[in-house]
């Protein structure tokens, strides 16, 4: 009898010890460097002995991750506690009530004081309908990558306007006579990057999709000019080949890595690949500058970036919040900058000597990220994106004229925004 009681006591003690260990499951996309994230989680575990952080990864692209997360979250599955989401998602997560609101956890700090440390664009993206639904992990933006060696050979400075970029590309293509070399690479297939392609000329000309009150202000004329601009790169200026409707971001990146492009409009991740990949033929030959503007317009980049959010179906929200605060701290931002070349979300880190040692070009990146514009913030963003990328893709495939596609894009957006 005594033995039995002892055994029961021991069992109870053991099970309470197990119960004290909190397990948190974090979803990180395959392209968001799960290896570096694991290191960061290990650091958190060593400081918080009662917590174990498991990592779940999947889907290389934002769309693929979203497909998986949709099945998990639409079925109210509690297995994932913390999720790393693309900057375009928080609005939808809030509308679907997939994300826990973070305001209730803020002890002593006001939301303003917490958010003002970050780059303003992310503070803005993570507050939806007055509720804080996510905290920033790392920043991203689109840049103009160029072949330093080729531009120098022809005596060019990096272009600041699109006209310059087109002229330089034409001159270099004519001079090099290399059938495998192309001029200006941009995304044109049916993917998320093509949304940015559609928006860049609109921003560069001074326009936008919505006003400050999130009302639709895009006109057919602006949409047409953007579509025409990309089409002209192929047909009129002959600086892009005629199959741009096939090109996804990573295809441009791979081709530029093989030395097949003079210019490429790509997000920040490309830099590391150009410099460090074993098969890169352009090591040390690539420069990065802000995207060009139009005469009299402004330089604009497409804002990317990733946010930490807590699943509303999580059973460990308080613990998850503690983890998210750590993950969105300057300390982690610095680790991500050094180990994964992720752009920091804290402005001060762009001057940090350790960060600059690993990524010298970050020194000039801050103004670009600060001036980057965000894609439309709307819970039905995927539908908005679909309208835009299908429109540009159809024009590049020459199945629709820019006029017809612009009309469809604007009426498609009106249906979503409700005139």
């Amino acid at each position: 009898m005594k033995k039995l009681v002892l055994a029961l006591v021991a069992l109870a003690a053991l099970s309470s010890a197990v119960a004290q260990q909190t397990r948190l499951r974090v979803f990180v996309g395959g392209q968001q460097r799960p290896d570096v994230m694991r290191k960061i989680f290990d650091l958190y575990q060593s400081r918080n002995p009662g917590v174990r952080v498991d990592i779940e990864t999947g889907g290389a692209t934002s769309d693929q991750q979203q497909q998986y997360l949709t099945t998990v979250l639409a079925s109210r599955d509690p297995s994932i506690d913390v999720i790393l989401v693309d900057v375009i998602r928080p609005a939808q997560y809030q509308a679907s009530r997939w994300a826990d609101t973070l305001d209730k956890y803020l002890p002593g700090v006001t939301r303003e004081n917490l958010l003002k440390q970050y780059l303003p664009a992310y503070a803005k993206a993570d507050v939806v309908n007055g509720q804080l639904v996510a905290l920033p992990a790392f920043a991203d933006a689109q840049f103009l990558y160029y072949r330093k060696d080729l531009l120098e050979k022809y005596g060019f400075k990096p272009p600041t306007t699109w006209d310059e970029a087109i002229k330089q590309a034409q001159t270099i293509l004519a001079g090099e006579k290399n059938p495998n070399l192309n001029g200006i690479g941009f995304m044109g297939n049916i993917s998320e990057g093509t949304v940015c392609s559609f928006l860049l000329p609109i921003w560069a000309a001074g326009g936008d999709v919505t006003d400050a009150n999130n009302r639709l202000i895009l006109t057919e004329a602006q949409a047409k000019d953007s579509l025409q601009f990309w089409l002209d790169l192929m047909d009129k200026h002959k600086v892009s080949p005629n199959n741009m409707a096939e090109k996804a971001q990573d295809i441009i990146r791979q081709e530029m890595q093989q030395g097949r492009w003079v210019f490429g409009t790509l997000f920040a991740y490309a830099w590391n690949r150009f410099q460090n990949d074993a098969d890169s033929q352009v090591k040390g030959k690539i420069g990065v500058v802000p995207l060009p503007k139009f005469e009299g317009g402004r330089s604009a980049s497409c804002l990317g970036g990733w946010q930490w959010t807590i699943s509303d179906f999580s059973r460990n929200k308080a613990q998850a919040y503690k983890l998210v605060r750590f993950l969105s701290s300057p300390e982690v931002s610095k680790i991500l900058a050094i180990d994964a070349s992720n752009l920091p979300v804290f402005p001060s880190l762009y001057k940090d000597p350790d960060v600059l040692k690993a990524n010298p070009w970050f020194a000039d990146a801050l103004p670009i990220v600060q001036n980057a514009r965000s894609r439309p913030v709307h819970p039905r963003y995927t539908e908005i994106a679909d309208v835009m990328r299908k429109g540009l893709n159809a024009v590049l495939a020459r199945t629709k004229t820019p006029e017809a596609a612009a009309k469809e894009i604007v009426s498609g957006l009106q249906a979503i925004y409700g005139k």
Partner: protein
Amino acid sequence: MARPQARYRRSFGDLSERALAFWLLLPAALLLGFIALYPVLRLFYTSLFTLQLTVSPDANFLGLGNYGQALHDPRFWNAVKNTLLIVLITVPGALLVGLGLAMLANLPFRVKWPVRLGLLLPWALPLVFVGLIFRWFFDSQYGVVNDLLVRLGGERLLWVTNPDLAFWAICLTLIWKTSSFVALILLAGLQTIPKELYEAAKVDGASRWQEFWRVTLPLLTPAILVAMIFRTIAAFQTFDVPYAMTGGGPGNATETLAMYVRVQSIENLNFGYGSALAVLMFLLSMAVTLVYLRYVRGADE
């Protein structure tokens, strides 16, 4: 005959034949109900609501409104058109190619495995693999198809981004992929045709053509029908190959019904409307199947 039956009786206790049938069928009926009937009913139920997670997580009863919206949705009709065209082109296409392959495999080769392996291989490949592989075959810059065209003195074609060419590229891929399935069924059918019939035909002085038209084809009809039913139902659900090859592009030029259902429910999180589209797709392939089944019954009688 009487004895084994009596033994069954004894081992199942005093169950009447009816009750026995009931209990024996119950597991299968439950399983079918759970994996087939319940999802279909649930799908229909969801299609009667407005339920779009990007707008609100709550569902509101709408009645048949989603169906009305579908009938006025040009993108739905475009997807119906593409799906029907794929059915009309790839089913007969796969049948013709499959018949040829089956006849070839039925020839008395000394070494049979290369032909049989060639038959099985496309069938064994996952659809989305096939889509990805052919996406590269048809790539305008790096693709083997354009390479052949150039070597033969032709022009490079934009296979994946020209809407007509993209459609034909998809159809060719589907025919390549599915004709081996048809051939396998037809090969089984061919092997059931007694050799005596061919010998008798030879004795009567029939030509090769006459043999084919008068002996092979009539006796192969049941197998052909089975293959066509399976292929048609599958063709109505075409998704993987165009999804991997064109993503429905350029624009929406090669989007099929199944792809549009996915866009609405998985990407736009519009489960109400997506369900209505799925129900319409279900009805469409159901209608075609019923026509076939009627025909099969008529042929049997």
